[in-house]
C-alpha cells in the first residue's frame, strides 16, 4: 500500500511523465476533449427533448424511464458494436459517451420542468404569453437548478467512462489504465484513475460555481 502510494507520488511529479505524446498533459487534454465534446453534444440532443416533454407533458413515460435504460446499457458492448460497424475511428467513443449522457440530462430536465408550479405556468399563460415565452421565460429559469444537476451528473459519468477510449486505440487518461493493466503496472493504473477522478471532481466544482454565479439572483424553487 505504502509502496503503491509512493510510486504514485513519483509517477505524478516526474517531469517526463508530463510531457510528450504519452505525457499527462497531452492525455489530460484528450480526456477533456472527449468528455466535454460528448457532454455538449448530449446536451444539444437531450435538452430540447426534455424541455419539450416537460412543456407538453407528452412522452413522460419515456423521460422517466430513459435514465434507467441509459444505466442498463453496457458501455463496453456499445463501444465494441460501433467499432465493428465503423472501424477504427472516434465514433465508438463519442456514440457511447453521448448515449450515456443523454438519458440523465433528459430525465433531469423533465423532472425540473414538472417541478414548476402549474399555477405559475397558468398565470404566465393568462398574461397572454406565447408558448415559447412561457417555456423560455418562465419554465426554463425555474427548471434550471435540476437541469444543471442533470448536466453535472452526465459530465461526471462521461469523464469516468471516457476511459474506454483507450480500449479502441485512442488516448485520454484511460491510456494509463489500459496500458497499466497490460503491463501490470498498478502505479500507472492508480495514477490514471486518480487523475480521472480529479478531473471529474474539478469539472463538477466548476459547473457548480458557474451555476451559483449565473443564477445567484434567482433563488432555487426547491431545496
Amino acid at each position: 500500500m505504502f509502496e503503491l502510494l509512493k510510486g504514485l507520488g513519483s509517477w505524478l511529479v516526474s517531469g517526463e511523465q508530463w510531457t510528450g505524446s504519452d505525457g499527462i498533459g497531452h492525455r489530460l487534454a484528450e480526456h477533456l476533449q472527449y468528455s466535454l465534446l460528448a457532454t455538449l453534444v448530449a446536451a444539444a440532443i437531450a435538452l430540447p427533448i426534455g424541455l419539450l416533454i416537460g412543456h407538453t407533458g407528452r412522452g413522460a413515460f419515456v423521460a422517466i424511464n430513459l435514465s434507467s435504460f441509459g444505466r442498463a446499457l453496457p458501455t463496453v458492448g456499445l463501444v465494441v458494436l460501433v467499432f465493428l460497424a465503423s472501424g477504427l475511428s472516434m465514433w465508438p467513443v463519442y456514440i457511447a459517451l453521448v448515449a450515456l449522457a443523454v438519458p440523465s440530462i433528459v430525465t433531469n430536465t423533465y423532472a425540473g420542468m414538472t417541478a414548476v408550479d402549474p399555477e405559475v405556468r397558468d398565470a404566465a399563460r393568462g398574461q397572454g404569453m406565447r408558448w415559447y415565452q412561457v417555456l423560455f421565460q418562465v419554465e426554463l429559469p425555474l427548471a434550471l437548478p435540476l437541469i444543471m444537476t442533470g448536466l453535472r451528473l452526465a459530465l461526471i459519468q462521461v469523464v469516468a467512462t471516457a476511459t474506454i477510449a483507450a480500449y479502441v486505440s485512442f488516448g485520454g487518461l484511460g491510456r494509463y489504465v489500459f496500458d497499466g493493466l497490460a503491463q501490470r503496472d498498478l502505479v500507472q493504473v492508480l495514477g490514471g484513475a486518480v487523475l480521472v477522478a480529479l478531473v471529474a471532481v474539478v469539472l463538477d466544482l466548476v459547473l457548480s460555481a458557474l451555476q451559483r454565479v449565473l443564477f445567484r439572483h434567482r433563488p432555487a424553487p426547491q431545496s
Partner: protein
Amino acid sequence: MTRTNRESRVTRMNPMNRRALLGGLFAAATVPALAACSSGITSLEGDGAGGGGGGSSKGGVTIGTANFTENQVLGYLYAAALEAAGVKTTVRPNLGTREILIPALRGGDIDLLPEYQGALLHYLDTKATATEEGTMQNALAMLLPRGLQILPYGEAENADAFAVTRETADEYGLKSLADLAKHNGKLVIGAAPEVKKRTVGSVGLKEVYGVEFKEFKSLDSSGPLVKGALKKGDVDVANLFTTDTDIAAEGWVVLTDPKNLIPGQHVVPLIADRKADSTVRKALARLGSVLTTKDLTELNRLVDKDRKDPEDVAYDWAAEHGIKK
C-alpha cells in the same frame, strides 16, 4: 467461451472465499488505493491446490489463456489433451497479458498456461540472449520462480513479426528491422501496450537496431486494432504474429531480423509444480509433438475468419489426431 467450465467457477464460491471476500470488502470500501495494496494477500491460494508435495492433477487443472484468440485455441488443445488422459480441466479464456497471467499462476488462480519460449524468456530476463530452442529451454528452467516449471516445448511456433504494408516498404525501402533506423523519428509503430516495455518490442528494437519511433501506439496483439491501424495507415509498422493468416492475405511485408532480436517462439506449457504429474507431462508432450505450426495457423484461421469456437476447433483437431478418450 466455455461450456461446463463456467458453472464450476460459479459454484467455487465456497465459505473460505466468502470470508476472504468480506475481508477484502472492508478494505475496498474505503479507497481503491487501500484495496490495491492491503498487505500481501495474493488471491485465494488455498482454493483447490490441496497443499504442496509432488504435484497431482487429481483435483483438475485450470488452464488460463491470454487475450488473443490463438492462445485460447492452445488452451482448449491442452484441455483436450488432458481430458483424453483422464484429467479434469477448466479453461479460462481471455484473462489478459502474460504480465497478468504469471502472477495469477503463482497465486493459484490458474494452474497451466500455453506460453511461447522466447517471449517468456524475455519476460523473466529482459537481458536474455539465448535464441536457440535448447538453450532457451535451459535458461527458462533456471529463471522460473519457485513453484513453476516448463514442460518440453512443442513443434508449433508463433513468433513475433514486425510488418509493414507493401507501399510503406517501397516508400521507405524497408526490408529488415535494421532499415527502420534510417527513418528514426518518422515512423509510428503499433503493438499491444505491453510490447512498449518488452525486449521483443520497443526496448530491443532500440538496443539492437538503434530504432527510434516517432510514436508508439498502444493497440492489441495481432488483433483488430493493430491490423485495422496498419490497413488505414495510422501506424507504419505493426507487431503481428507469424501465425496470423492476414499477413499473407493482405500482402504485408514482414521485416527480416538479421541480428536475431526475435527469439524462437515455440509453444511451451508453463505449469505450476502442484499440478505437474506424469499424466499431465505425457499428455502435453504428445500434443506438442503432433501439433505443427501449419496446424496452428489453420486453427487460427478457422476461429478468426470462419468464426468457429476455439473450443470446437481444438477438440475436433485433437479427435482427428487420435487425442481423445
